[in-house]
């Protein structure tokens, strides 16, 4: 357990402020939204993976009693095709709009093509059956390498490949190509003593949040729109709704409801603009909730990938060169995740020469989106395998080669970035020093152990907080970050620490877009870091104002007032925070602290590592995880239980990537496993308790040393489990998921090779 380092609140484990509401069912989620006159919306989705929409006839649906409004893509305002700034990155408006409701083409099975609002869900569903859509079916392409081939079915007639600010003019599904180069990789490979190259594939995987997407919209007669939704960012939701509906953000209020998981998938809007237009058309509020199949078929999973890694080392085990080819399926529209993969692919190692070649490719799948350290898990699976092969060639232990080549302060990544103070080495040393690593590996012929390490760079972005001092000495803290992982409390704790209060004395709440300053998404592991920083600054603002009030009371200069550990002092005068809060009426009235942050620098990245013990059944190919440890650098763990929760959650999701999870498409591009029955995520019955080791290498760029911990933990599990499988049975699949039939096939191929080698 981390030491408290002199802090009184930071590093403790208070009960979360929203805990009682959550466990008693009183917390209000999107589906709980109720308004007078509420209608229910449903979406008609394309059954085809690739088709031209020739016509849509909604007349029969509109005539059904109880139906109040029907929409198609042509009802969305046409604001032209332009890049729109959503505050956290640009988006091409046509793509944003067409993903909400298709106009000319359906680009994936499940692509929305029409929507209905009716007085009941059942009438709305019945109305969908009455909408007649004439499609011209087109050949679909679902695999990244096939989509890159000359002559592959082209998703977008006007798409040409962009190469770092230059339009190549080449029509293709290849939306973007870029590369990074450091030093002279060819020369370094030529001089290396050992060179290993392998190819890898990873499946399309969904975030698997329990709460489906939902939105309720009320379009007032005065043109004001209110949207209640489950979102990772109320302000980015507002920006996207404004862009799609071509309306100013001042006319839109987004009220974030409690959120039942997001992991990156609840940053884009899907239902919100549709519910808004249905409300406008019907004159009544409209609620929409996705079905589980719709969530799988139509929202943004992580990209499937093809990755080729080549690495070279000298005889001492020093990695001297690295080369990555990374091609990501962005889904129906171009994405930006392969850029993140490039930042992570060799991020754990100090490598002097290398290159990274990246391709963002559209395929007939839903538009991929962020999923917890987006892009990092795909490339960690590949790189960690090759590092293990180098170690084997050189007769080194896997941990030994990692420690010898660990990235550290001053390491220049191949994309050029130089690391500030970072904790990769400390995380690897924590593997070495752990009881798990030092204990015997699983006994028996089919047991094995593997290790791996991964990285996520984290982001800063904008956050706002306001703090109202109450007369009883408590503080109402308002923030704009939707709370997914206990961040109300981790933010409130930083506020409390700064003012010498108890965490319980701070009452945090998440506000709507009209009630707090701009705050970017809950994503990028940024909330405890950036919103926590805003809370720290708001606390300093409160402190300074209260020093002025104390000076008034004691009739001294403000410079004569000191504040320490929750107590204001000047000479013999002394007042606690609570005591002074009770005397605001006589010194000028209420005190409100406020702060915004937009940190350009100081965002500390985080490394995570795993030790995985597995047992493989060679008959069935089933892999059982016997023991699993996650180690992660938290910088400073504000609330260790929530840090551990993030580490455990990311690990479980990573194990899902490793062993079970994939989008399984039929040949014609229809998703065949769009339910949790068939899309198998790990449950508590599948896994042991995930053990956690928090490493603290404080981030010098944050007042309390925070590094975001929400994401890096999903990167290493597939590689660690792959290594453990190899240790157990001698085969190591290079395609995710490592499901039973792949294990059995690999074992059979292994046996056949062995038999041929012995002439059997």
């Amino acid at each position: 357990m981390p030491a408290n380092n002199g802090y009184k609140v930071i590093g403790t484990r208070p009960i979360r402020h929203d805990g009682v509401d959550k466990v008693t069912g009183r917390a209000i989620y999107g589906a709980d939204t109720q308004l007078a006159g509420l209608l229910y919306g449903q979406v008609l989705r394309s059954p085809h993976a690739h088709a031209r929409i020739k016509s849509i006839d909604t007349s029969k649906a509109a005539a059904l009693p109880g139906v109040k409004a029907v929409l198609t893509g042509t009802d969305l305002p046409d604001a032209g095709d332009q890049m729109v700034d959503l505050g956290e990155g640009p988006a091409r408006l046509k793509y944003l709009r067409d993903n909400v409701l298709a106009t000319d083409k359906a680009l994936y099975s499940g692509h929305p093509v029409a929507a209905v609002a009716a007085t009941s869900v059942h009438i709305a569903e019945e109305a969908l059956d009455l909408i007649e859509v004439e499609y011209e079916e087109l050949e679909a392409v679902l695999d990244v390498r096939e989509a890159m081939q000359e002559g592959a079915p082209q998703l977008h007639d006007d798409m040409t490949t962009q190469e770092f600010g230059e339009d190549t003019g080449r029509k293709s599904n290849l939306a973007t190509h870029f590369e990074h180069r450091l030093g002279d990789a060819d020369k370094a490979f030529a001089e290396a003593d050992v060179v290993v190259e392998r190819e890898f594939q990873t499946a399309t995987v969904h975030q698997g949040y329990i709460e489906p997407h939902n939105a309720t919209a009320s379009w007032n007669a005065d043109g004001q729109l209110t949207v209640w939704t489950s979102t990772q960012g109320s302000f980015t939701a507002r920006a996207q709704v404004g862009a799609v509906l071509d309306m100013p953000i001042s006319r839109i209020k987004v009220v974030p409801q409690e959120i039942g998981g997001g992991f990156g998938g609840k940053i884009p809007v899907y239902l919100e603009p549709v519910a808004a237009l249905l409300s406008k058309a019907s004159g009544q509020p409209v609620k929409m909730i996705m079905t589980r199949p719709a969530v799988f078929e139509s929202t943004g999973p992580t990209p499937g990938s093809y990755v080729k890694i080549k690495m070279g080392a000298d005889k001492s085990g020093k990695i001297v060169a690295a080369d990555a080819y990374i091609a990501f399926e962005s889904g129906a529209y171009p994405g930006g995740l392969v850029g993140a993969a490039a930042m992570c692919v060799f991020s754990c190692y100090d490598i002097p020469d290398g290159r990274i070649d990246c391709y963002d490719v559209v395929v007939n799948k839903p538009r991929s989106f962020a999923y917890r350290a987006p892009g990092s898990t795909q490339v960690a699976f590949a790189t960690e395998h090759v590092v293990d092969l180098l170690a084997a060639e050189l007769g080194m232990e896997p941990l030994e080669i990692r420690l010898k080549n660990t990235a550290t302060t001053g390491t220049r990544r191949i994309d050029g970035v130089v690391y500030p103070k970072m904790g990769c080495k400390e995380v690897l040393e924590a593997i070495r020093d752990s009881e798990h690593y030092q204990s015997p590996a699983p006994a028996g012929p089919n047991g094995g152990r593997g290790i791996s390490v991964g990285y996520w760079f984290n982001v800063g972005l904008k956050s706002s907080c306001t703090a109202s001092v109450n007369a009883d000495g408590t503080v109402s803290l308002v923030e704009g970050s939707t709370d997914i992982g206990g961040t109300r409390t981790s933010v409130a704790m930083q506020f409390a620490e700064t003012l010498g209060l108890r965490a319980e004395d701070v009452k945090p709440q998440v506000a709507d877009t009209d009630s707090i300053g701009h705050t970017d998404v809950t994503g990028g592991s940024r909330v405890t870091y950036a919103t926590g920083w805003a809370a720290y600054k708001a606390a300093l603002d409160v402190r300074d104002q209260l020093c002025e009030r104390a000076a008034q009371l004691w009739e001294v200069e403000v410079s004569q007032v000191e504040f320490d550990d929750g107590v204001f002092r000047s000479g013999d005068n002394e007042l606690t925070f609570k005591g002074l809060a009770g005397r605001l009426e006589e010194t000028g009235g209420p005190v409100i602290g406020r702060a915004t942050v937009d940190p350009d620098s100081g965002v500390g990245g985080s490394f995570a590592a795993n030790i995985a013990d597995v047992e493989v059944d060679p008959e069935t190919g089933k892999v059982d995880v016997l023991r699993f440890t996650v180690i992660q650098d938290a910088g400073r763990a504000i609330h260790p239980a929530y840090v551990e929760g993030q580490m455990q959650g990311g690990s479980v999701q990573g194990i899902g990537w490793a062993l079970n999870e994939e989008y399984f498409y039929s040949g014609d591009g229809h998703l065949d496993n769009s339910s949790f029955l068939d899309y198998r995520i790990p449950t508590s019955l599948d896994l042991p308790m995930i053990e956690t080791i928090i490493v603290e290498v404080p981030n010098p760029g944050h007042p309390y040393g925070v590094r975001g911990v929400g994401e890096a933990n999903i990167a290493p599990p597939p590689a660690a489990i792959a290594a453990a499988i190899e240790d157990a049975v001698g085969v190591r699949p290079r395609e995710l998921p490592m499901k039973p039939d792949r294990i059995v096939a690999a074992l059979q191929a292994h046996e056949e090779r062995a038999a041929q080698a012995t002439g059997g």
Partner: protein
Amino acid sequence: MPVAWIPSLMQKLTAGQQQVEVEGATVREVVAALDARYPGFKERVLDGDRIKTEIAVAVDGEVVAAGLRAKVGPESEVHFLPAISGGAS
């Protein structure tokens, strides 16, 4: 003097130079200096008076929100990187 790192896909503009020392106290001045030495550089990275949406600029390892106005120190490194878009993080 600040050092600008030229992306490999733009190095045909710089005759293969990966790192270039340039005068400049802001990203705007660095881009102007690069364009003066390597004509076409500005057109490649700017859209009007803004950095192209698909490109991010990092000063000393941190992507800068201030864009062209971002300060550049005498020992700074300036990198031109692909933007991570779509709320990727």
